[in-house]
């Protein structure tokens, strides 16, 4: 790992230097290292773009002086990461643009930080009287508030959306989303790395494979392991199948958001076909239990006939998407709705299809290849519109690209073993792994303890930076268009909070 350790006071200068070299924030991790050092470790990982690799900047925050300079003045994308560190580790980012609590519930006692090592996992402290959350006040004649959630009318994950609107026009939206905290990162601590895989797969149902591969790759990177070519190719196959069912689902969801039932029904039907394919291949519809550190847990069950089934599915999808693209009443509904500017997408570090729909040409599969992507032709479609239509079209194009990738992978699947032993990993050494999930970068940052155990595990899923961008796409739109805009990002609440 390309890591430099700097003093706290030099942080901002170094980070500015990285910004000038074209660096992009990749992940942030804070960790309680009082066990062997005098305070807390802070790690900022930056991507230096296509072929440029990564740069990690680490610093130490003294336990007696638990503050650190916020990098948000240079990389605004770190705003939620730093607020999370403040809530869970009790380190205060100085000069942060918005230092309000992010993860901490309103009735959680002050001065209690769950990710510190002296806070035992499973502890349930007595809750305090709820504090009033300071929403940004909006004034003016005719401005009214619309609170939505966290309990919704349909089967949706819990999140609270506070709108300020004049008539039907949205002036501002604040989203409070951290209602799904399961303490996954805390639960992982002290577990053997192989056992922790079961937790990792359950962070999120819809990008479980992406999480599993990112986590496994972090460990393989640390142990300097090369997974066998067959395992790498099969991992890419599974990851593309995951992208396929997610994109099919999301296209259907966008249709549902406009009340266009034809698209909604066929989206979920096609998704179901891929899920059934997943089950036939791995024994699990959502690909659980297939990825292990060092390779795969077993050979796939039914590779024969897979290529044919995918070709049939591709044709089926072709017929459906032709109807969607030709329906003017549907297309009109997407156009100009929920525009996220390229400038905002860059500033907030938006990832995945949402970034590519706003003209930000980034894809980890091409820029920092992993699994079998290095030897594959990865097509990265980019749209400039930044509206719901662009996010819809990006997915349509990526589905086509994924079918092509799967065909390429399956015609030329290497033979050989699928797993190598992990071996003894060096303790207290930072490492990270990543995948381009259907929603963008899933990054797993790890510190191990002796005996192949986890010391600290931070997960930054694609939903993390993207959720923060949704309000920017919503402002100026109509209230009834919010669900459609939200669906065009189709973000995950569980991934976000962990």
């Amino acid at each position, binding site marked *: 790992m390309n890591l430099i350790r700097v003093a706290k006071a030099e942080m901002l200068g170094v980070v500015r230097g990285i910004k000038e070299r074209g660096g992009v924030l990749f992940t942030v991790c804070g960790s309680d290292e009082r066990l062997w050092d005098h305070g807390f470790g802070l790690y900022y990982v930056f991507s230096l773009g296509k072929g440029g690799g990564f740069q990690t900047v680490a610093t130490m925050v003294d336990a007696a002086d638990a503050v650190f300079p916020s990098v948000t003045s240079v990389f605004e994308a770190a705003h939620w990461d730093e607020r999370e560190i403040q809530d869970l580790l009790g380190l205060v980012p100085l000069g942060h643009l918005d230092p309000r609590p992010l993860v901490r519930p309103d009735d959680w006692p002050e001065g209690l930080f769950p990710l510190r090592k002296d806070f035992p996992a499973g502890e349930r402290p007595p809750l305090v009287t709820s504090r009033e959350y300071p929403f940004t006040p909006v004034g003016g004649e005719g401005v009214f508030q619309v*609170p*939505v959630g966290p309990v919704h009318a349909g089967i949706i994950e819990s999140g609270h959306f506070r709108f300020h609107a004049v008539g039907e026009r949205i002036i501002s939206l604040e989203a409070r989303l951290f209602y799904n905290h399961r303490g996954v990162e805390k639960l992982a601590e002290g577990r053997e790395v192989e056992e922790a895989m079961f937790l990792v797969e359950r962070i999120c149902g819809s990008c479980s494979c992406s999480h599993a591969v990112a986590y496994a790759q972090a460990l393989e990177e640390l142990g300097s392991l090369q997974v066998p070519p067959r395992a790498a190719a099969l991992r890419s196959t599974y990851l593309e199948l995951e992208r396929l069912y997610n994109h099919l689902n999301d296209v259907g969801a966008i249709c549902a958001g406009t*009340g266009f039932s034809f698209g909604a029904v066929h989206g979920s039907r096609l998704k179901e076909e891929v899920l059934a394919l997943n089950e036939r291949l791995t024994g699990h519809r959502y690909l659980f239990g297939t990825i292990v550190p060092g390779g795969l847990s077993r050979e796939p069950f039914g590779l024969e006939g897979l290529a044919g089934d995918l070709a049939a599915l591709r044709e089926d999808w072709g017929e459906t998407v032709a109807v969607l693209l030709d329906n003017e009443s549907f297309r009109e509904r997407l156009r100009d709705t929920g525009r996220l500017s390229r400038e905002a997408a860059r500033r907030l570090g938006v990832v995945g299809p949402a970034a590519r729909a706003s003209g930000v040409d980034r894809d980890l599969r091409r820029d920092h290849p992993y699994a079998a992507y290095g030897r594959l032709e990865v097509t990265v479609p980019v749209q400039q519109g930044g509206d719901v239509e662009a996010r819809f079209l990006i997915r349509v194009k990526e589905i086509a690209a994924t079918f092509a990738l799967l065909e390429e992978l399956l015609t030329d699947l290497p033979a050989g073993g699928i797993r190598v032993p992990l071996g003894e990993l060096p303790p207290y050494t930072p490492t990270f792994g990543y995948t381009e999930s259907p929603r963008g970068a899933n990054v797993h940052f790890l510190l191990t303890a002796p005996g192949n155990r986890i010391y600290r595990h931070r997960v930054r899923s694609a939903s993390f930076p993207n959720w923060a961008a949704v309000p920017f796409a919503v402002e100026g739109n109509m209230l009834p268009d919010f669900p459609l805009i939200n669906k065009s990002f189709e973000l995950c609440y569980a991934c976000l909070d962990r």
Partner: protein
Amino acid sequence: MALTWLVIQTALYLALAPLVLGYIKKAKAYLQGRRGPDIRQPYRDLVKLWHKETVTSRTASWITRAAPLILFATTLAAAVLLPTISLASAVYLRYGDILTVIYLLATGSFFLALAGLDAGSAFGGMGSSRESLLAALLEPGILLALSVPVLTAGSTSIRRLVGASLSPAVLLLPAHLLALGAVFLAAIAETGRIPVDNPDTHLELTMIHEGMFLEYTGRPLALLNWAVQVRQLLVLTVVANLFFPWGLALVPQPVSLGLAGAVYLGKLLLLGGGLALVESVYAKLRLFRAPGFLWAISFLGLLALVSRYLFRGAH
């Protein structure tokens, strides 16, 4: 005799309305390649709601309690005035007037909009405000379209209207067909269907009609849903029997009544299928595009009226 017809009409509307909803849902499912819920599901839903606990917001006033009853009563009162299978009902209920029907429905809508505001929830208020906007824009369209048969009949009495439309010469008049088109589009808007509203949505922020119902539970909700189903059947009956009154039993005899019942069901199947088709092919309009759709209804109604004077036909 009048009382008998009153009872028959009421029973017919109440019994048939959930089935029509079930049929439309089934037709939609069929068009989308799904199996869909059982056609009798709306009955089961009503029974289920009837046995559920009723929770009322602490901030709600008498309006919340009264609105379901008022909506149910006004809808039913309007419904019995329209002939379903026999003209006899219109003959005996001689106070049946198309304007009475329209404004009985409007009274129900008015109280529903009040009820949406009453509990003070944001969604109810939004639903009421949107529904009122659309209702205000829909009204001229409906009145213009209905003025064509009214002028033909020379009366707003339903009996006369039906009588006038029975003449085959009237049916082929461009004015009659244009008015029919306008009323069918108005039926889509009035029943809260795509492209104006989405009856199947669970997304509170997009709701128009459903938004006003969000605070209701248990029996009042069952009553509201039932009233809305009757209203849907009523709107379809206006299209079916005001514009195509053939098949109505002129004299109440068992044979002609049976035949009339079959024809009536056939018309409902056709119209319900039409609604399902429109709903499967189109996406919902943006909220502020919906008024454009409603203006189109008014315009169609105006065209119908103008063409009535341009092409008088054999009349």
